[in-house]
């Protein structure tokens, strides 16, 4: 609830829009740049495996491994694929953590931009 208080009551001007992607340059503050997120599977592979669109995220490689494991271990699709399932779940968790980090980064950059704007305004008044 803290983020809701922040977004609607205490700091509505610096609250990121959670429905939209980040607005700042993703490389701000990273001197050497950031690692890019990639997937190993190609579009053709995903189409061949008939992966639904909501599963075609950055964890789709783990999902493909999990499906392959289920196929190879049939009918022990649960007991034979604990590790693959855990890897896929862990990837989903880390994906959400990354989204929360992006939100926090956006929020701090908005606050920074506001600080800089306020500083510039006081300097202009002083001149």
């Amino acid at each position, binding site marked *: 609830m803290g*983020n*809701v208080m922040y977004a609607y009551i205490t700091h509505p001007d610096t609250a990121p829009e959670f429905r939209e992607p980040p607005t700042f340059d993703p490389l701000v503050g*990273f001197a*050497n740049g*950031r690692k890019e*997120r990639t997937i190993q599977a190609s579009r053709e592979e995903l189409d061949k495996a008939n992966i639904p669109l909501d599963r*075609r995220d950055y964890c789709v490689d783990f999902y493909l491994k999990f499906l392959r494991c289920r196929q190879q271990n049939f009918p022990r699709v649960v007991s034979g694929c604990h590790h693959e399932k855990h890897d896929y779940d862990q990837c989903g968790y880390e994906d959400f953590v990354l989204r*929360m980090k992006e*939100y926090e980064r*956006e929020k701090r950059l908005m606050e920074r931009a506001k600080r800089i704007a306020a500083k510039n305004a006081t300097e202009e008044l002083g001149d």
Partner: protein
Amino acid sequence: MATLRGAVALSKALRPFMRKHGLSTTAVLTNWNKDWKPGPFPQTAEERAAAAKRYGLRVEDYDVYDNDGMGYGDYPKLPFASGDSRDPYEDWDIPELKRNFGEPLHALADIIGEDRWDANAKPRYSYLNMFLTLGAVLGTLATIYYLTLPYPLFLPAMPKQYPLNNLHLERGGQPEDAVAVKHYTFEPVD
């Protein structure tokens, strides 16, 4: 063949009985619904007295529904008293229905039984009060709902990222409209 012979024998055996009574004098005919239908609206005092006698009522107790096309003929207009308003300690002939033998039934007896609706109930609060209270509660909830519609609760997270230019082609986009979308982790490049 044996069955046919049996049927013939049975009809022969029944023939004297059928000749004497006939099919039309069975119990069905004397208890058919037309016998329970009320008579025509009583116009004269004699007709009223005859109708009251027919329904087992005294003439001064006998009242009748208006003959406006929606009435019940000479069926008596009884007090609209449901089972709940009848004395539970009286020695009724039929205690389950709080009813005596031969007692005329109300025209709407099926909806004012104790298992249905208490027509004489005196509610603690008036029906207007109940209606307005319900409306106030639901209205308050609806008002809160509509006032807070622009302020959804959300988790502090950005929208989910998808590979392949946010699934541009998969979501029905044209290849010439594709914009390269790059997503990054928080690990710096060495």
